[in-house]
Structures are given as C-alpha cells and as structure tokens.
C-alpha cells in the first residue's frame, strides 16, 4: 500500500526570517496593510510504500528528522495523510 504525506518545515521561532520579512514588506506596496507575522518555510510531499499507516508514518518521521529538516534551525510537522 502507498501512503502520501506532506511535511512542513519551518524556521525555528526566534531565528531571523528574511524571506518572511521580504513578503511582509512587499504587502503594503500592493495595498495590503493589515498583514503581519509572515513566515516562509518548505513544503515536501512524498509517497511511501508500507504495510500500514503507522509504519509509513514512522518512516516519514524519520525522513523528516534526518533529511528534510535541520534541527539546529528548523522544526517540522507532518500534515496529513492520503491513503493510496
């Protein structure tokens, strides 16, 4: 069975986020003055072949931890699951 997950990788709170700041700075020039706290991170989608959902999820956890994110600067979150 295949299971599809989405992983969100975000910069740790407190770290400077110039990409977020740049978006935030661009918004008022386009007329949106009521937006704040903009943060830019990564979205990774991947499909895993596994016996069951818990096994698949455990593997995705490991991939997210070991490859998709760098614990010094980033947090990750597994989004949801589409069973295929």
């Amino acid at each position, binding site marked *: 069975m295949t299971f599809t997950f989405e992983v969100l990788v975000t*910069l740790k709170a407190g*770290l*400077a986020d*110039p*990409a977020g700041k*740049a978006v935030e700075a661009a918004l008022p020039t386009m007329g949106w003055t009521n937006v704040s706290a903009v943060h830019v991170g*990564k979205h990774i989608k991947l499909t895993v072949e596994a016996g069951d959902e818990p096994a698949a999820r455990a593997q995705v956890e490991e991939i997210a931890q070991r*490859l*998709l994110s*760098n614990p*010094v*600067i980033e947090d990750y979150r597994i989004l949801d699951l589409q069973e295929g």
Partner: protein
Amino acid sequence: MAVAGARVGVVTFPGSLDDRDALDAVTFMGGIGVPLWHASHDLQGVDAVVLPGGFSYGDYLRCGAIAGKAALMQEIRAFAERGGPVLGICNGFQILCESGMLPGALIRNRSLRFICKDVWLRVESSQTAVTAGMEPGEIIEVPIKHGEGRFVATAEQLVQIEGEGRVVFRYATADGLVDEDANPNGSVGNIAGVRNDRGNVVGLMPHPEHAVDPDVGPTGGQGMFASLLAAALEGAAR
C-alpha cells in the same frame, strides 16, 4: 615553511564547483592535489582533506544536506576523528555543519540575494590546522560568493562556540573592526568560520582558494593553505 610533498585531497561531489580551483590552489602553494570522489570509500592516503565550494546536489532542500550523507563522508569523519586536517570551504562548510562535524548552520543571506565580493576577515584563532601559521588579529582579504552563508547556531551552541574560542574568522573592516557594516550576510557575531574542539576541522564561507594567485584576486588565502599543507605534512610524518 617547507610544505613540498603534502598530499591534499579535494572531494568532488555532484555539483561541486570550486574543486578544480582548490586543487590549483594546493598546487600553487607547493602541495600535491589529489582528486577524491564522493561515492568512493577511498581517501587515497591523503594527509589533509578539502571539501570545496559549489552547489552539491544543486543545494536543493538545504545546502550540504544531501552531500553530508555521501559514502566518502564516513571516511572523512573517521579521518577527522584521528586528527586529520579537514577544511570545508563554502559548500564544504555547509556540509560539515549538516553532518554535525562543526556546530551551527548556514541559512539564506539577510539580503536574500547571492553575494560575490571581496571581504576582509579577522583571524580569531591560530589554534587550528588552517590558521596555525597566522596571528590572531591578522586581517586578510578573501572573496565570498554565496546565497546561504548566514551563520546561525542554537543559544547553547553559541555559548560554546564563543566560550571555547571556536570562532576562527570574523567578517571585519579593512582596519579590523568587527561591526555591522562589515557583516555581508547577517551572520551572528560576524562569524565567517568556526572549528571543532580539536581545531583540526575548520569551515568557513569565504573562499581562500580564490585568494592565492595575485593575478586573479587578493592573496588572503595563502596563509590558510600554507598552514593546511604544514599540518598535512606533520600528520604524514606521524
């Protein structure tokens, strides 16, 4: 400093760009450059290793993340644990951080743009294989060229890095002033390069290999290569 005969390996990963340039710099400084291949487990008996600049694996995902898992990296880790000198330049620095051989991480420049220019560095520590021949406080000129060179670290790491004198280079003005104006990318504490606890592993964002030949740039990298070659010879003699 007699350095003739020092054998320095330069690793080529898919997407390495300054690998040839690092080999040329080793040759220019009187050493013997040995090309190494990422997928092999063979360090070919070199006396020092350089992880060169570039965009290994396109810098997709995170700079250095994928290259850190290469086969040869296992050997380089063991080599470093034996005290062998390892120098990571730019992408090589990112790889060393990603694989945990150096503390901290490198994220996008404050300006969000790639920056290529000559900068001044202040040497902070001569307790390393790469700066043994240099004086703390020495000011050298070396180019940077990176999009993700902003050094950051966790609070605990920073305390350790600063407390244990593990900063090797800081961005400075030509007069040696370490201030915001001299900080090209927003690195914490103007940190341009750090070392491991033993000082045999050093990583920095600037490119010393592009600062040895006066016909094509500044010469602030000569001291680093001279020190590295000397450390390599010492290791070879041991």
